[in-house]
């Protein structure tokens, strides 16, 4: 196992990149401006790319460099560009109705991270030097999952919901770079392309929503109940 014998320099590089990504998720959670979400998402993707590259450098999995380049390209440039186009077309600059104030959602977000830590602590049995990196990776993976679901439930705008889904995926991607760097390259590349298709589909659907439902806020999508 690569994680079983990493030194403290490597551990601190991985940890700081992972923690910075988590912080950017909180930026998304606390902000009202759709543009800020997209920038935070792009920044997060670049951090993940840096993480892939550094894991690749220290672990010797050369294919991680390819993944780093693709991550930076797709998640860091193409997806934010597509999202910016959607934001620009929608004429919605900020999230107006949110169920929760930003401040209270930040507090809930903090609680969620603690919960994720408790679960992560139970799931890992590694007790070697790398234990804290493993637990940190699991914590961040789970907490980005929870934070994504939190954003999905308190935000109404279509674009915010797409971004929340992308945060869900970013969390998995980030964690898997640290935990399972040996995961076959093919799967990771296909998942990247898959994301691209997902966002393209969402973009088309958003257009349908504007034309046929007359709104992009999920609060007004209330025709179907029962």
């Amino acid at each position, binding site marked *: 196992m690569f994680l079983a014998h990493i030194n403290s320099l490597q551990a601190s590089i991985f940890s700081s990149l992972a923690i910075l990504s988590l912080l950017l998720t909180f930026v998304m959670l606390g902000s009202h401006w759709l543009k800020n979400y997209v920038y935070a998402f792009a920044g997060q993707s670049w951090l993940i790319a840096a993480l892939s590259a550094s894991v690749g450098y220290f672990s010797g999995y050369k294919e991680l460099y390819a993944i780093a380049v693709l991550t930076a390209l797709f998640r860091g440039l193409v997806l934010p560009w597509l999202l910016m186009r959607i934001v620009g077309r929608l004429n919605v600059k900020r999230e107006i109705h949110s169920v929760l104030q930003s401040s209270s959602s930040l507090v809930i977000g903090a609680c969620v991270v603690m919960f994720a830590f408790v679960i992560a602590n139970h*799931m890992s049995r590694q007790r070697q030097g790398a234990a804290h990196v493993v637990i940190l990776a699991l914590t961040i993976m789970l907490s980005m999952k929870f934070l994504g679901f939190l954003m999905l439930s308190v935000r109404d705008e279509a674009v915010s919901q797409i971004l929340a889904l992308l945060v869900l995926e970013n969390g998995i991607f980030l964690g898997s770079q640290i935990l399972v760097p*040996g995961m076959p390259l093919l799967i990771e590349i296909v998942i990247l392309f898959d994301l691209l298709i997902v966002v393209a589909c969402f973009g088309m659907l958003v257009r349908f929503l504007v034309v046929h439902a007359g709104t992009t806020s999920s609060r007004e999508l209330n*025709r179907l109940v*029962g």
Partner: protein
Amino acid sequence: MGQQLLSILLLAPLAAIVVSLLSRRASSAEYATVTAAIIDLLVSIPLLLRTLSGSLILAHGYVLLDPFGAWVILCISIVYALSSVYAVGYMRLLNEEERLPVFYALFSGFALTMQLACVMNNAGVFWIAIELTTLVSTFLVGFEREAESTEAAWKYIVVVSGGISLALLGTVLFYWGSSFVLGPSYAMTWAALRQSAPQVYPPLLLVSFLLVLVGYGTKAGLAPMHTWLPDAHSESPAPVSAMLSGALLNASMLGIARFLGVVTGTSVSRFAHAAVVGLGIFSFVIAVLFIVRQTGIKRLMAYSSIEHIGVQALGLGFGGPLGMAGTLYHMLNHSLNKSLMFYGAGNAMRADRSKEIRNIRHVLKVFPVSGILWLLGAVGIAGAPPFALFLSEFTVLRAGIGGGYLWVVIVFAIFLIIVFIGFLSHFRTMYFDEAPEGEIVPLPWTAWRTLPMWLAILPLLVFGLWWPHGLWNIFHQVFLSVMGGGQ
């Protein structure tokens, strides 16, 4: 031989997609789709028989052709064939002729992605195939482009993508757990996961399984993750509803069953089975409660799908050869019966121009023949003999008693009676109550819309009276290959 059959199975819908998109004419798209669907149905039977003499691993280990996958492919092909015939009669009623080629391309693409998912040998690639089914079917759900169908499509893609991302997390954790046994880099095949599972740290294994269960359970429509299902199934065109209900739910159940097979035989096996039983009975109860007081005709059918997916989950969770047999038989019977129900609902909705049960009246006067078929289907889907769903539900009940889940079986039996009364009382009002104001215009008769209903009801009756012995053999083979024979 197996490889050739599989290639034909996958190339036929691919060819239909190409023809539909290139010809740009509705009629050629219709014929291409119907032809492809019939080829798929004809191929899927020898394919299933071929797998009985041993599973095949193809394409550098990425494709696994086993009895379970072939069985689900057979169910999917049946629904694909019936629905494409019905679609020829139904989709012309929507006055969207210029968009029909795109519809048929998506329709075949949907079938293709589901069939692909069934033969994936790698848990990661399986996840991608299931994700693709969502993307393709979203546009089928929103095909009618009304406010309601767009809303349903949006809810469908958001809820299912969110749910399925949990399955991805679970898959990654499975990979991580097994990497302590198999080394940091290995192919994540079902066999590799199952072989290494007993040595994985049990809490990690359990969390991974629960995440996967919730993820694919969202896609399968298990309550409480079912919220997208009534909207998507009720707002899509009737042939698509039949595909979503009769085929897609089975493909997602296949994922749950394969992962359940991975953890079977480990120390968390008992808890994992109990979790599947819990979700199954919860879905069943929730669905029955919504069925009793339902007002929309297609939403009624959608909740009935949740009910039946709950039965399948119960069979899987009860475990043992009997539970597996009940689940697989139920898959086939539900695919046939629910397709029939959606076709009938589509006919009634078009004739009465309403989705509400209270506006649909005197079905027998409007549809003398297909009305009877629909009513028989309703009796069947409510779980009454002599139709096949009775036999499969009964088998699941027996598996539950044998597996020691007595309380669950009691609740299941009580709610089976409630759903029988509740479901059929809606049909009583539609068939025999006084009509409200308003003109009912009978649809012009066409064999395209009636034939698939006949083709669905006849096997249901046959399978309800006679359980072919060969099927037992197939079910037992599936049990051995998926669950490894152990409990």
